[in-house]
């Protein structure tokens, strides 16, 4: 089984061919956005971070920005800095995975302010975008897919229809040599024993349990009932009563493959097969962590409905019930509610989802892309000073 992708100098494969305009600090957001507005084929990512951070929090922010720029769906990058911030453009550029892609650096304070910095950055972006436009898709093995799995705005149907169908796709991809990321550590609380049984080794099991204990420990240390926020009010309206129930539905996304590795937030997997990334359950922080870790496509299941999409990675949206599909057809790519009515089995819907995945990896635009959803958020682990 094959798809049409963009081969990168480092051997990775992109499903998209964006030029990314990346601010390293919130102060550079506006100019990065102006550059992307001027130049076709470019996308800018705005964020609130990049200065007066330290320790693990600083490192994680740098890793997320550099990982995003390193993603195989990005042809080249214009990194935009202000010039006096804690996270310098050089730091982000040097933290990027050695991908061999073109990187241009723009520092606003060295360019004489907004207008000239925007013009200089636009010329850099024009050059990269024209180079990118000359690349052609080539036939690639399905094993080159790195799939991010996500569920957000879940309801009680998510664990019965959309997540099992996604699990079916996850298993097929792993069988064909691909990589599948499971994340949302919070939403594994109460389902950890299922994954522990499938851990590749004692070390993987210990890493999984450590990630879950750390997340649950934060809830316990708060002195509050986690149920104040997880499950969310929408989850509860959709019939989910406890975090355990939510997790037992979520874990279906991972199918039944062996868990090869547990990696920290925004790290790239070092193994193929099923890998777990330690992220919060918050949808956009999770999505951004997986994108920074190198996923080149995402399947996102939802029972309540969400328009979310990554700016650089196609995000395929699956509804868990047909009422949602009808209500939010502009946002949902495929309906899994047919599993509940018996029109589809998990296997037959899984096959449709796999076909859709290969179409999207080969260039078909998702609803989130068509509507230019461009969501990005970094999981912060410390305060700003």
């Amino acid at each position: 089984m094959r798809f049409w992708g963009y081969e990168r100098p480092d051997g990775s494969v992109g499903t998209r061919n964006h030029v990314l305009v990346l601010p390293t600090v919130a102060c550079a957001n506006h100019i990065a956005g102006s550059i992307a507005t001027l130049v076709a084929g470019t996308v800018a990512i705005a964020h609130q971070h990049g200065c007066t951070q330290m320790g693990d929090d600083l490192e994680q922010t740098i890793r997320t920005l550099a990982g995003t720029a390193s993603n195989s769906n990005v042809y080249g990058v214009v990194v935009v800095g202000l010039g006096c911030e804690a996270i310098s453009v050089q730091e982000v550029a040097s933290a990027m995975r050695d991908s061999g892609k073109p990187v241009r650096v723009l520092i606003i304070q060295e360019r004489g302010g907004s207008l000239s910095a925007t013009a200089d950055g636009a010329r850099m972006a024009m050059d990269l975008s024209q180079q990118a436009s000359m690349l052609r898709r080539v036939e690639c093995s399905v094993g080159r897919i790195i799939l991010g799995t996500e569920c957000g705005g879940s309801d009680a149907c998510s664990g019965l229809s959309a997540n099992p169908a996604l699990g079916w796709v996850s298993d097929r991809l792993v069988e064909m040599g691909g990589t599948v990321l499971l994340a949302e550590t919070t939403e594994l609380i109460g389902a950890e024993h299922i994954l522990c049984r499938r851990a590749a080794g004692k070390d993987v099991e210990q890493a999984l349990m450590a990630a879950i204990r750390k997340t649950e420990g934060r809830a316990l240390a708060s002195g509050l009932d986690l149920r104040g926020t997880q499950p969310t009010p929408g989850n509860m309206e959709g019939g989910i009563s406890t975090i355990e129930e939510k997790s037992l539905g979520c874990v279906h996304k991972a199918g039944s493959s062996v868990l090869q590795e547990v990696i920290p937030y925004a790290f790239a997997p070092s193994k193929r097969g099923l890998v777990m990334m330690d992220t919060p359950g918050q949808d956009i922080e999770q999505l951004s962590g997986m994108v920074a870790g190198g996923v080149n496509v995402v399947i996102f299941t939802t029972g309540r409905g969400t328009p979310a999409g990554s700016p650089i990675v196609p995000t395929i949206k699956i509804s868990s019930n047909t009422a949602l599909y009808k209500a939010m057809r502009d946002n949902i790519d495929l309906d899994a509610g047919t599993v509940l009515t018996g029109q589809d089995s998990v296997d037959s819907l899984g096959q449709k989802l796999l076909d859709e995945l290969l179409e999207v990896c080969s260039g078909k635009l998702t609803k989130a892309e068509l509507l230019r959803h461009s969501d990005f958020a970094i999981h912060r682990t410390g305060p700003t000073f």
Partner: protein
Amino acid sequence: MDVLLIDPRDNVGVALVPLAAGDCLRVGGAGLRSLGAIPFGHKVALRDIPAGEAVIKYGEVIGRAKVFITRGSHVHVHNLESLRGRGDLA
């Protein structure tokens, strides 16, 4: 099928249509009468569940009964509590 039994060990079923009080249901071969309105996707007790006992769905523990839950009742946040991430009990 109006109510789904996911696993034979479960003591709750999932309403696949909105249920009204008095609806007669067949779940896993047994008859059951709904005691109240139960929205789509929500849980109905398939057996009496004494307070403190585990509530089972997917064949796994999803929490415990806060009060005695009568067979046919809506099972949700008012009568089912989580056992995890309970900083309020720590």
